[in-house]
């Protein structure tokens, strides 16, 4: 792309806010009541991490892997890529995240046992992704039907997964943080380009997780 410095963020926006949010409405209508199952799975993951941090690492990672693969296929690839060709290159990253989580689980290399400040903050972030995100539409003047739900929509899936991963130990953890963090950055910038007041949420989530990781590194 020539004269790249003359382009603004808005120049890369290919769709209108109305089309963007209707995409969530259509996805929700298509998959309801799967939301109840994905939300229950998310809450169960947080409870398992809280109560039995040294067990169930395999199942937690496999559930997260399945949900990343599902969101990558059902939302990013099958819907979002239709209005944003760049997403066709991003959707496979969610599949890759699923593979990485599966690989981590299979190796037995993931334990959700970190209870330092960053780990506890992570679980709080996970609850935000699970519980707060679906409640946002009326706050931003949108219909309930456009709610973003963990396991169905990418942002709450990435936020809740990052929160849970902050409480995880294992060599693969830094690698597992990369794709959801990059997604939140992309999503926040997209919402910003749309002029959507919700833009700060994924960016704040990413910044908080980054700050928590930095704090953890300093505390070592």
């Amino acid at each position: 792309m020539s004269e790249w410095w003359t382009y603004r963020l808005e120049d890369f926006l290919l769709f209108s806010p109305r089309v963007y949010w209707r995409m969530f409405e259509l996805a929700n209508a298509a998959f309801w009541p799967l939301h109840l199952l994905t939300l229950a799975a998310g809450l169960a993951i947080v409870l398992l991490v809280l109560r039995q941090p040294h067990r169930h690492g395999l199942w937690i990672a496999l559930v997260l892997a399945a949900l990343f693969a599902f969101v990558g296929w059902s939302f990013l690839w099958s819907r979002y890529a239709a209005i944003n060709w760049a997403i066709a290159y991003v959707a496979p990253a969610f599949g890759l995240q699923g593979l990485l989580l599966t690989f981590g689980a299979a190796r037995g290399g993931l334990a959700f046992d970190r209870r330092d400040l960053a780990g506890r903050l992570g679980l709080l972030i996970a609850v935000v992704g699970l519980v707060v995100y679906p409640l946002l539409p009326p706050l931003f003047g949108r219909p309930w039907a456009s709610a973003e739900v963990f396991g169905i929509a990418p942002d709450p899936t990435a936020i809740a997964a990052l929160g849970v991963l902050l409480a995880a130990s294992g060599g693969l953890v830094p690698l597992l943080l990369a794709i959801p963090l990059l997604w939140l950055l992309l999503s926040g910038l997209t919402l910003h380009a749309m002029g959507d007041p919700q833009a700060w949420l994924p960016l704040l989530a990413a910044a908080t997780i980054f700050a928590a990781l930095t704090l953890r590194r300093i505390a070592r």
Partner: protein
Amino acid sequence: MIITRRTFVKAAAASGAALVLPAAAPGAPPAPVMRAVPSSGEMLPAVGLGTWITFNVGDDPVLRDECAEVMAAFFAAGGRMIDSSPMYGSSQPVIGYGLEKLGRPEALFSAEKVWTSSAADGPAQIEQSRRFWGVPRFDLVQVHNLVAWEAHLETLFAMKADGRVRYVGITTSEGRRHDLFEQIMRAHPLDFVQLTYNVVDREAEERLLPLAAERGMGVIVNRPFRQGALTRQLQGETLPDWAAEIGAKTWAQLILKFIVSHPAVTVAIPATTRVDHARENLLATTGPLPDAAMRERMGAYVRDL
């Protein structure tokens, strides 16, 4: 350089892009202003329909139907040129859906683009675009933003020679790469050039519009309302009294009249999601158009707001 009355008249004469105000029968609905394609003399309404963002609605059945309604209103008001690009997400299949739903209107003038950095992929992309639209061939194919322009122009001129496309063009937007754009205009027998031009973005007046007139190239104007930002910005401002002299009742009408009254301009392509706007845009240029002095007044007025 700001266009003067003298260069204005000269360009009008040189371009051969005659402005035709159709004689409407008393009581008949207003008809759009027509312009001639310089290279062929074919008449086109001076306002077309852009699809950037507005037609990228994916598989949403409700929004697809809304786009089809916009197209129906556009054709019903006498519209012809619809412009799209492979870059515009799902706009191409959405146009195809609308055309199918409307029974493939004969009036359609299909303007597409080729947009790939791979020269080898150009023909396949054009063919894919044609299938999305469901047309036997495109009227116009343009090299989008000059991407791989040398190879694509070679492909397009060969297609034109074979009768697989009627017109060939190049595009730019928001004033980018005007130097290269000018070089290509001087070196190749293009039928159309597409660029950004409106009452505040007037860089094209300096070299490109006079050159298009001199070289007998049609000019398609994109971003006439700066993607809606210009009309939103002017929304709170009162139209000047003298707007009545050119029959402009809205800012959108005033802006379109400014654009279309440049003698080198063939078609402006505003995009919209609203049926009423599709109709209003097309008919915005009916009635008197501003002369060179009035155009300067319009430019100065908007600049000073």
